[in-house]
């Protein structure tokens, strides 16, 4: 298992390098940081602009290969260069990464767990009203873009706030200023943070849940009438216990593969959510950087995203190995089962 993971890790490292390089090359050839500097008022002299661009390794008159070499050498030292403002990209990247993590973690976990449970439940209640409601609901959610969903949630929250007369929901920013200086001290600050998290978490969770419940329903239908579930019942397990201990456990295995693939969608959704809920995370930064033509920041965010997607892949591989004893014995069957190599 350890040997397998090490090989996988090397595989993924190669992929990350490729993805990061390609995204740098694309950003460096498509974005125009010069325009951003020249547009300043008063317009700086060309020599000053050139000097500034050279200092940031953004000068489009330097050959692309040379700029890439400098950038890559920096990245190898763990330095993503500087933003257009001259700040180090690294500091901003870390700050914003944690904002994104805080924004998305709860929603993702909640969405996964609820999606799996709801999907399994729908499969067991197949073709009954509860299954139809879950199915219809998840299709509705799947067909709603996340920014529409977020805005709808905000409108709903506004209504609730108005009718109750209390500020139950907050949806701008991460925290209200001065919240931790109230009667409850830091505890109040935490409560305020959680309150701000409610709506974005709901948006992330709902989008994920819809997707996962569909997958899980399909997986679960496959094992509902499996012989081993029948064996479990013949042993004296009740129908529900047989399904949970033997059916769901087996039906979870293929889900781990989906987990890696939906992670990309999650990052994309995060971009909209940050804009809508006013969180200053990676997604917002990426959009701003593209508009400004900030090549180094864009490349850094892309690099981070590539690493995150592949990390999710690695996690799903580990989960697969933990859940399915059949893949632990040999490397060959492992590849055959996950369908990836």
């Amino acid at each position, binding site marked *: 298992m350890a040997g397998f993971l090490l090989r996988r890790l090397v595989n993924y490292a190669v992929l990350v390098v490729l993805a990061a390089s390609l995204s740098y090359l694309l950003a460096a050839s498509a974005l125009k940081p010069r325009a951003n500097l020249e547009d300043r008022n008063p317009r700086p002299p060309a020599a000053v602009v050139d000097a500034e661009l050279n200092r940031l390794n953004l000068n489009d008159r330097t050959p692309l290969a040379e700029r890439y070499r400098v950038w890559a050498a920096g990245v190898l030292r763990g330095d993503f260069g500087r933003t257009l403002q001259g700040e180090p990209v690294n500091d901003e990247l870390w700050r914003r990464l944690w904002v994104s993590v805080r924004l998305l973690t709860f929603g993702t976990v909640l969405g996964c767990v609820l999606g799996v449970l709801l999907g399994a439940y729908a499969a067991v209640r197949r073709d009954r009203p509860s299954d139809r409601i879950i199915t219809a609901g998840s299709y509705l959610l799947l067909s709603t873009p996340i920014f529409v969903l977020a805005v709808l949630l905000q409108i709903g929250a506004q209504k609730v706030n108005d009718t109750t007369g209390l500020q139950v929901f907050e949806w701008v920013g991460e925290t209200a200023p001065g919240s931790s200086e109230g009667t409850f001290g830091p505890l109040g600050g935490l409560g305020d943070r959680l309150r701000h998290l409610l709506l974005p978490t709901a948006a992330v969770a709902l989008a994920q849940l819809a997707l996962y419940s569909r997958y899980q329903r399909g997986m679960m239908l496959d094992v509902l009438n499996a*012989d081993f579930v029948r064996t479990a*019942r*013949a042993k004296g*397990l*009740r*129908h529900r216990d047989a399904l949970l201990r033997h059916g769901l456990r087996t039906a979870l295995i293929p889900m781990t593969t989906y987990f890696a693939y939906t992670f990309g969608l999650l990052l994309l959704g995060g971009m909209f959510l940050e804009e809508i809920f006013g969180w200053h995370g990676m997604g917002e930064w990426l959009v701003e950087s593209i508009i400004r033509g900030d090549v180094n920041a864009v490349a850094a965010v892309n690099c981070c995203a590539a690493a995150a997607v592949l990390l999710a892949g690695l996690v799903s591989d580990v989960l697969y190995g933990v859940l399915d004893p059949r893949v632990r014995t040999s490397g060959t069957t492992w*590849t055959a089962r996950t369908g990836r190599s």
Partner: protein
Amino acid sequence: MTVLEVRDLRVTYPRGVRAVRGVDLSVGRGEVLGIVGESGSGKSALALATLGLLPPGTRVEGSVRLRGRELLGRSDAELSRVRGKDLAMVFQDPLSALTPVHPVGDQIAETIRVHAGATRPAARARAVELLELVGIPDAARRARAYPHEFSGGMRQRVMIAMAIANDPVAIVCDEPTTALDVTIQAQVLEVLRTAKEATGAAIVLITHDLGVVAGFADRVMVMYAGRAVETGPVAEVYARPRMPYTIGLLQSLPRIEPDAPRPVPIDGAGGISTGGFPATGCPFAPRCPVAVSRCADTEPPPVPVGTPAHTAACVNLDATGDPARVFPAPAPPPAPPVVPRHERPAVLEVEGLVRHHPLYRGTVLRRRNGTVRAVDGVSFDVRAGETLGLVGESGCGKTTALMEILRLTRPQRGTVRLFGRDTAALTAAERKALRRDVQVVFQDPFASLDPRMRVAEILAEPLLVHGVPRARIDARVRELLALVGLDPAHAARHPHGLSGGQRQRVGIARALALEPRLLLLDEPVASLDVSVQAGIMALLEELRARLGLAYLFVAHDLAVVRLLADRVAVMYRGRIVEIGPVADVYGAPVHPYTRALLDAVPRPDPHRERRRRPAPLPGDPPDPSEQPRGCRFRARCPSYAASADAAWRTLCETDEPRPRPVPEGTGRLVACHHPEGGRP
């Protein structure tokens, strides 16, 4: 004392399919009731209904009593306290019936914990004891292994351990040995016997194998179309069957004894799949040779015949007094070719054929990790007009050898010569031309016919591929249908509109379309009911004589091979261990493996089967990726195990035996150092 009693059980699936239509049965403590019948007769539905495991939406009526307590109509919670404790079940396919993600020890322990509330360590310890009881070596370690790490026979032992975990009063076994080799079947039945003795449970054994029932059951119940048509003590029913279906079933069975009568096919096909049964009267009447007009009136109730315990459901019992006269005698076998074997030309010569599959490990850097020696140096020949049967346990390489010949290319090693031509030297055009002469019939008539094509298209396809003018195809299709005993009307049907036997006839007709000279048959009757098997075997024999074909016949059923083949080759781990004329090999097997294989076949004769208690061949079918030194069969060889002579054993350990003529001059080869048998 009656433990399990079923009265007037009726099972109706959604959409009105009546799988069981009023069945009564009772089993006493320590008694074994065998239930036999062909597919679609309702035996499995009966088993599942007894345990309350039918899918929701199925209507179950009647009464199922376990030690006097009614089970039907109870809630899932109440039933789950009975299931696995007092009433246990062993399922057919032990691979899919065990949860793949839990260790087997835990799965057995769960059975104990659900009912007894034992602590986890106590339940685990008991699970290990149970695994020892069912004969799993190194039980403490194997308890932590997962189902995929066990062979089929070992998995079925685990299933049995699970069933007896809580000392049940009754065990229902649904085809417990069907998917297994005869050698493993013998082992599993032995384990089941041990389990019965350990628990004293009543056993309901559902099977289609009349040989298994003869050796294991006390009483037998024959089911047809959801009803029990004949019930009685095994010896009585086998000796004096009275219901025509039972008579047909017993007579259609291929038997392994040299003096056994030829199997008699039952015409037509029963089963829900082919349009059901007549609405009134006896459901067997359309296939019954002694049906009279009264049969169509009402469904006959079972009435006592002879002894009180023996009942049969037939209105025309007068006609079944002598079972031998119920079914018309089968046509005598076609006369054997008059030309002696050595003067007939060889159609297929195989010399040192090898097929190895490499095993790889690793994902980024794939490295070769071993070799599966599927076929490891096999030599035989098939002469014009004869049938060579290739037998052995699963994994011995018999099907691989067949497929290797069918490729018509240069084998990895060795040579294949068809009609005197070396396949390695063929050009693409010659290869295509040669394909006309070599055709194949596959095992599964459900999977080997394209479900979207009509029968006429299936039969026309090989003709079109080989450029037969369209104008002649229609006539040829009609000719082929007639040849295999199908109706011209069948040409317009899709495969799903045909019964299993009819489908296999289509498969044979397709193989015959191009007028081949050699047919490769891969288990052509293995997936068919016995009553249908006999018909297909008779057809194959007749075609061989009429068209002058030669057959290479792969089968695991030794009785089928005895009937169809002239010569037989016994394979073990990719090698032929014994080859020779069928009568000689079956009459006096020389290789210890051949002896064990023949011994393991259960005979459908209760008297003989009870006296004959052969020691099952130990061990599993071997893993073909290992390469031991010396004789490949050594690890399981009873002669080697019994011998105390060091020099005698050393030869087996160091040298691989080569095939040599034993006895001289009979065309028989045996690969064994000690063909004279064990020496103390």
